[in-house]
Structure formats: structure tokens, C-alpha cells
């Protein structure tokens, strides 16, 4: 019945025909790509083009003012020969290797116990989440003042009041890195706890009930049920917090802003070195080479972690 009621279609067979001739599934694909094109285009322009550009720049010499000139592998050679770079490289991994496991263990312990607490559960959870919502800059400055010497430093004032000699927190090549890492871990804790709690809630109750009936110890429950079933959550947190610690910047920069990454480069992470090379020395090519190295590190670390923690 509706077969010959197509006067408009017959008038423009060439134009509307192409789309009209597609099957429903094909039309759906066209629309899907149409919508996807927007974020893809956005990503290409905002992310991929600058990334590619930075990689090209790492083989060039540029001070922002003049023309870019080719430098071959010069920037990478300088990098390998630069003792500061290796110090910074070690620092970056110190942040990663200390920060990730410590924050993982603490956040799991808190989440595990918080999960069993009913009294004031929401309030306690909110308190743990609060630092995550606080500005990193404000927090870094408050901690910076906590760490000062007498008469303004909170910790040293407490030590001095009970007659213990002062501790140099930030003005020490050994203490400064852990002192900066501590608030950084604390700041990220809230987020990790929330993710862990969601993971814990997702484990079916029936497993625990079965274990209870079998009379299994709580250690066994933890090792045999909770942790294995939390694997996807742990993978997610490890990857995310590793990337976070590898890219640590705001805490370090704000707590050591008079001597960024100091004393004697002992707290300088790679991102801070990149920032200084680019925006205080205006050596864009060298900064780009450091960025490429950071990119490779992030890629390798993430791939290794995904592989190690993958579901077998």
C-alpha cells in the first residue's frame, strides 16, 4: 500500500539516495561515527597533534622567540650526560615506589575497616574524602609551614616543647622527599578509599556466608576471597596512583618554591625539571626531550602493571 507514495524520493534520486539506500545497521554506524567524530576531532587537535609536535620538538632547538632549528639527538645526549637528570629520575621513582604501595596499603586498611563500621559511617567517610577535594596548593603551603623550624613550625614546636632537638624536614637532602610525599599520599587517600569501598561492596555476600558456614578464619577470608575478588579494583588504583606519583608536581613545587625541587635537587621530580627547563630557562627542545622520556616511562609502567595484574 505505501509503495507508490514516494513522489519526493523520486525527484531527488541522486542526493537522498545514497543515505536512503543504506540499511538500518549501516545508518546506525553512520550516526555513531558522526557523534564519535566530535570527541575524536577534539582529541586529535587538543591531544595528539601537540603530542606529536612535542616529539618533533625534542629533536629541535627552540627558545620560543626565534625559529626552531634541527638539533638531531643533541637534546637526548645532553639528557643522558646530565647528572641532574639522573638524580631527578631516581627521585621520580622514589615517589612512585614509596607512594604507590604505601597509599595502597593504608587506603585498603581504612576502607576494609570503614566497611564494617556502621556508626557515623557517612561522616567518617566524608572526613577521609575531604583532603581529596582540597586544593593541592593550599594544602602544600599549610604542610610547608607545619614543617618549619621553631618558632613557626607545628611539628618542631611540639618537639621543642618536650625537649627533643628539632628535625630538619624540608631543609635536608634525606628528609625532604618523604616529608613532601606524606601530604601527597594523604591527599590522594580519600579517593582510593572510596574506590576500595565500592569494590568491597561489589563482592557478593554469599561468598562470606559460605565461608562463615565452613568456619574459615578471617585471614583466609581476606586472602582467599576479598583480595582476589578486589583484583580489578586494585589494578585500577595501582595504575591511577602510579601515574599520579610519576607526575607529582604541585606538592613539590609549592613546598619548595624558593628552591624548586631542592635542597640540591633532592626532591625534584621529572615534571618539575621539565617545567623549569621550559619556563625558566626557555630551552623548549630540551624540555620536550624530557617530556618524551616521561611519556615513555608512563607508558612502560602502565603496560607492565596492566600485564602483571591482569585477570588470568
Amino acid at each position, binding site marked *: 500500500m505505501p509503495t507508490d507514495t514516494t513522489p519526493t524520493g523520486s525527484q531527488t534520486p541522486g542526493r537522498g539516495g545514497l543515505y536512503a539506500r543504506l540499511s538500518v545497521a549501516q545508518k546506525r554506524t553512520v550516526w555513531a561515527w558522526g557523534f564519535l567524530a566530535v570527541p575524536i576531532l577534539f582529541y586529535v587537535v587538543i591531544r595528539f597533534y601537540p603530542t606529536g609536535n612535542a616529539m618533533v620538538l625534542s629533536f629541535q*632547538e627552540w*627558545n*620560543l*622567540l*626565534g625559529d626552531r632549528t634541527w638539533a638531531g639527538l643533541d637534546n637526548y645526549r645532553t639528557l643522558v650526560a646530565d647528572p641532574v637528570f639522573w638524580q631527578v629520575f631516581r627521585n621520580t621513582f622514589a615517589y612512585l615506589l614509596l607512594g604507590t604501595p604505601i597509599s595502597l596499603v593504608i587506603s585498603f586498611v581504612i576502607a576494609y575497616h570503614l566497611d564494617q563500621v556502621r556508626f557515623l559511617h557517612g561522616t567518617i567517610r566524608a572526613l577521609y574524602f575531604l583532603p581529596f577535594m582540597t586544593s593541592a596548593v593550599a594544602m602544600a603551603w599549610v604542610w*610547608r*609551614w607545619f614543617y*618549619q*623550624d*621553631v*618558632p*613557626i613550625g607545628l611539628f*618542631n614546636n611540639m618537639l*621543642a616543647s618536650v*625537649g627533643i*632537638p*628539632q628535625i630538619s624536614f624540608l*631543609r*635536608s*637532602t634525606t628528609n625532604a622527599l618523604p616529608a613532601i610525599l606524606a601530604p601527597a599520599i594523604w591527599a590522594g587517600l580519600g579517593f582510593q578509599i572510596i574506590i576500595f569501598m565500592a569494590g568491597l561492596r561489589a563482592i557478593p555476600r554469599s561468598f562470606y556466608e559460605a565461608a562463615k558456614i565452613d568456619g574459615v578464619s578471617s585471614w583466609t577470608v581476606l586472602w582467599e576471597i576479598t583480595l582476589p575478588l578486589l583484583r580489578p579494583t586494585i589494578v585500577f588504583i595501582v595504575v591511577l596512583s602510579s601515574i599520579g606519583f610519576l607526575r607529582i608536581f604541585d606538592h613539590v613545587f609549592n613546598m619548595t618554591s*624558593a*628552591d624548586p625541587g*631542592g*635542597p*640540591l635537587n633532592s626532591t625534584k621530580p621529572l615534571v618539575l625539571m621539565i617545567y*623549569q627547563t621550559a*619556563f*625558566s*630557562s*626557555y630551552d623548549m627542545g630540551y624540555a620536550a626531550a624530557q617530556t618524551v622520556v616521561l611519556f615513555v616511562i608512563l607508558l612502560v609502567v602502565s603496560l607492565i602493571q596492566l600485564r602483571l595484574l591482569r585477570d588470568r
Partner: protein
Amino acid sequence: MMNRRIRTPLAALATSAAALAFAPGAQAQQVTIEYWQYFFESRVTAMEQLIANFEAANPDINVEMTHFPYADYRTRTAVAIPAGEGPDVVQLFYGWLNDYIAEGLIQPLPADPFSAEMIGSEFFPMVQAMQVDGSYYALPTAVRSLALFYNERLLEAAGVEVPTTLEELVAAAAATTERDGAGNVTQVGLTTGMTAQDHHWFREVLIRQFGGEPYLDNYRTVNYDTEAGRAALDFYLGLEEQGVTSTGFMDEPQAAFRAGRAAFHIDGSFRIGALQDSRGLQWGVTELPAGPDGTRSNYASYWVNAITSSAEGAEYEAAVRFMEYITSPEAMEIWLEVVGELPARVDVGMTPENADDPVFGPFIRGLEYANTTIFADESAQRQVMVDMVERVRLQGMDPGESLTAAATAEQAILDSYYNQ
């Protein structure tokens, strides 16, 4: 003071508004030039006033000012000017000028009215650092120098006089340092910190006072790994060893001084404004103390105005006239009054009223013997000084060895910059 600060710009704005209202009908040929500087409230206020005066005197020229936050300023200008999107007249830190000259982004100032003889005789001597191959590329409206701030109450309480030599400074600082029962410093005599202004004090003042010459070859060769350099470093490190200072005390030297926990503090003239706003702090300021043989020295820095390569034809002519006005004695008087920065011309600075001013006087008198370091990379070169002291303090390195390492590191920075 407060009233005058507000009233003058308002009056100037009113007259210029009136001038502008009548201008369009009379003047067919309007030229608009653009001026850039970073945002600092009093600098913007002063410049608005200068622009208003200039436009009133030159009705055919329009000046549009754009300002950016300080944190972005260097990057923004460095991106915009090569792209041809920049201003016609721009304010730059003197230390950035080499790069702009090398890339041909700013034009030399025309010999008329900016002849080398005129600038050489009328401006304070350190402005000569802006001369490259016989022509001047930029000129400051105002300059900054260092001086010794002191807390009047603490000096009075300890019964010490304002020091005039390094020896007197150390003695006075010792008398004003206070400690708690455990020996922790609770009030410092003298604030120190290479991260603040001390690296300038060390380079241009202490090394010279101990008989040295910090750099040779127009600041391209490091020359402080010498006996004089060593003596200066020993003096500097000795301050902490003698217990008259504590590096990093209260985080920042200026914070300690503002909080009234430091008797002496070396800082630049740009600190005056902040100190004037500190309630309850009674402070004075004096020239930097003289060295063992009476040598005085100082470090001066400045922001300069330059004409960029994008100003051509009528805009160039207008830019030259604008430059002439903002480096005139009148502009410097306004700048001193509104911003509190020191005039770059000797005859404006050294008037009896200014040179004997209790606050500006010590800074202005310091300009007569001030030196200006020509930096290749100021923050990297500052870091060298910071690390030199930290190696001795935190790692127990021999001072002589640390001095040699610093000289080598700084020479490497200079070499890589000048051999590019």
C-alpha cells in the same frame, strides 16, 4: 600620601577624557599604538596616568595598554611578539633583552632623541648595559636597588646603632639574635637566604668588597673562584657559623622581617610597598654596609621599555614619541610617587628631596655605585649560588671546593648560552 596617590590619576583621567572628547573631530589622522606590561596594581595605575598625560599632549596618538598576570607575562610576550601579534612598545625585564635583540624582535632606539651621549650622561651608569654595538635598545622608567632594612624596636631594645660596615652589621646582628633554652633561634639578627636577594648581594657586593671582580668579559666569564671570592664566601657562611643568622628561618627572609622576628634584612626597593602595609612594624632603611676597606657596591635591576619590530611607519613615530615621554623626568617623578620605584635619571633621583628621603634615599644613593649583572639565565644562575651554600651546609663540602664547583657550573651556563 594616600590622597595624593588617588587624586592625581583621577585628575589626569578627567583632563584626558575631556581632551579625548574633543579630539576626534579635530584630528583626522589617529594613530593607535599598543603597550604591554605585567599586572601590578600600582604599575598599571602609574602607566594609566602616563598614558593620559601623553595622549593629552599628543592628541593624534592613542595608546592602548594591555597587561597580563606576572606568571604568564614572559611566556605570553615571547609567543606573541615573534608571531607579530605583540605590542608596539613592550616592557621587558632587562635580563631578557639579549634574546630579543638576537632574534631581531626589538628595534634600536633612534639616536635622536636617544643619543648614547645623552643616556650616558643623564641616566644612572648601570643603564649602559642596555647599549649593544653602539645603540641603545631599551630604556627603563625606573630602577631598583638593594638596601639594608632594620627593625627599629629590636635595635632599640638591644641598644645597637644602625650599622654602616659589615663588621658593625655582624656585631649588631649578634646583639639582636635571640634563642630559646634549647638553643633554637627564635629571632634572627640578619635574615639570609641565597634564594632571596642574597645571591645578588654576594655576586655584586660582597665579592667586590673583598677585592674581587665577579665577572670579566662583559659578564661572559666567571671570575669569583679567586681569593676574593673565597673570602666573600667565608664571610657569608660565617654569618651562620657565628650564629647571627639562620638560613630558612621562618621560611622566607622577608616573612621573618615583616613578622618582626628579624633585626636586619637585605632586600630591594620593591619591598617598600609591602613593608609600608605591615601594621605595627617600625622599620628604617640604610645603605648596604661598606666592606672591610670601605668599598661600597650595590646591585640594580630594572624593567625596560622597548619598541618592537612590529611598529612601522606612523606607529613607529608614535612609539618613539611615547618612549620619549615615559623615560622623561616627569614620567619618573610620577612613577616614584605612584609605584615607589626609583628614577632612572640622575637629575631626578639625586635631587636633595629624593636622595635624602628617609625611605628612598638609601636606595637612590646606592644607584651611584650599583652594578647590574647581565644574566644569561637568572634562575639557573641563582640556583648555582643556592647550591654552592647548600653543599657546604648539608653535605659538609669544603667551601673552596664548593666555590670552584659553582664557578664551573655557572661558566657552563654562560658558555652554552653565548655559544648557541
